[in-house]
């Protein structure tokens, strides 16, 4: 078994070579499924370090993307040991998309990577999605959280209409709604009827974890 603390720190420091060396040594040691879960948890903890440093202004968007790619590569390598994708268990289901009239995707995709790193099941329905598409997906996948992304001023009304569609579909009380994107503010959160808003993907993941009662 490897030193999970060292792995966590190396992920946090974005030391790709060292991380790869640790993982390769681990994979060569005929590990058990339980061991693999511990390694995945260390990756998640390391990704959290990256997120914290991003919030502190020490790391930048490129660092987050890079950490996400390291995590995705590790999941690929650990998959055979874990039985099936991810880490086996998930802490909750998130429906994610860019609202109608908007086609931006960078923030949404980053949020998706970070949610997956935090053991959420993520259903990404894509860009320019009408309110009904969010409502349908929330029902179909028995969602816990719906994430709405948008950067344009026109996205604000789409967010509000999407929250309305969730009400009409009868799932509004069951799900938490979080909105994000450069246009989003506290006022817009109230206007849209969402439960909360975020300035960046990392902050949003923290709020999602609180909602589903997952450990931070």
């Amino acid at each position: 078994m490897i030193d999970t603390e060292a792995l966590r720190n190396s992920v946090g420091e974005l030391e790709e070579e060292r991380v790869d060396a640790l993982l390769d040594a681990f994979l060569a040691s005929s590990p058990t499924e339980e061991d693999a879960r511990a390694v995945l948890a260390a990756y998640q903890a390391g990704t959290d370090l990256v997120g914290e440093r991003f919030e502190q202004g020490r790391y930048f968007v490129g660092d987050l993307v890079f950490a996400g790619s390291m995590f995705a590569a590790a999941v690929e390598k650990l998959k055979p040991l874990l039985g099936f994708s991810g880490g086996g268990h998930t802490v909750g289901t998130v429906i994610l998309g860019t609202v109608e009239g908007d086609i931006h995707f960078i923030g949404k995709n980053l949020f998706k990577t970070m949610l997956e790193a935090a053991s959420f099941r993520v259903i990404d329905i894509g860009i320019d999605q009408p309110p009904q598409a969010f409502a349908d997906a929330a029902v179909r996948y028995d969602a816990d959280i719906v994430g709405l992304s948008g950067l344009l001023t026109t996205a604000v009304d789409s967010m509000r209409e999407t929250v309305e569609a969730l009400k009409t579909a009868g799932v509004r009380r069951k799900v938490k709604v979080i909105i994000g994107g450069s246009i989003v503010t506290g006022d817009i959160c109230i206007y849209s009827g969402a439960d909360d808003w975020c300035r960046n993907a990392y902050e949003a993941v923290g709020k999602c974890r609180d909602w589903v009662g997952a450990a931070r």
Partner: protein
Amino acid sequence: MIIIGEKINGFIPRTLQAIEAKDESYIREIAKSQTEFGADYLDVCAGTAPEIERDTLKWLIDIVQDTVDTPLCIDSSDVNVILEMMPLAKKPGVINSISGEVGKCEAILPVIQGTDWKVIALTCDPNGIPTDPQVKFNIAETLIANAQAHGLALDSIFIDPLVTTLATQQTSLLSFNEAVRLIKAKYPEVHITSGLSNISFGMPYRKAINTQFLALAMSAGMDSAIMDPTSADMRATLYATDALLGNDEYTMNYLTAFRQGLIGPAKKA
């Protein structure tokens, strides 16, 4: 280079602050300084919630036109808002923007047919913002054909091949430049512009990325930019690059800009 001054935009925190505080003097100041530093058009964008976007834009337009004669670049993602703001303009300017998204060309092009308005056309469509230069070119071609069908002259069209964020797409500049080359090879009279600061989103020391992007994209054929002309670094890059690319006979523009203090080491304090 055709410079569209970017600062009167509610997505910029300092400008949003002025909008929220109804701080007329700040808006006047940035309208004036951008004009003095060579803006050919002044972008006006509310960046506020939809229910107050119209009021905000009207307020901005009135202040700008009361301060300078520089034509406007009316900037909204809602074509109906653009259509409502156009009659307020004292002279024809630029529409920012149309794209391959449903309904945009249909709303704007018939209205500017036979006028001196120019239009920025973004290379995105219902499938999103492409990263492939060939797809950017294909969308540009459709937009150009559509604009020509409405009688627009080629040099009234500004294609913005939508630069993606370098932090998340390593080949962003390469793809942008390839699209610029493809468009310019077939339509030399069409202008290419870019809201270029998007390139450095999420990165530290953005001005290093922005200035070098400007130079590299100009060398591929970009001949307009939506930028901050009051930035000394951007201005110096602009004049130096134009001279280096052979667009500045005897480098006179560069020399004159230096003599006028538009470029060069900061003077006094």
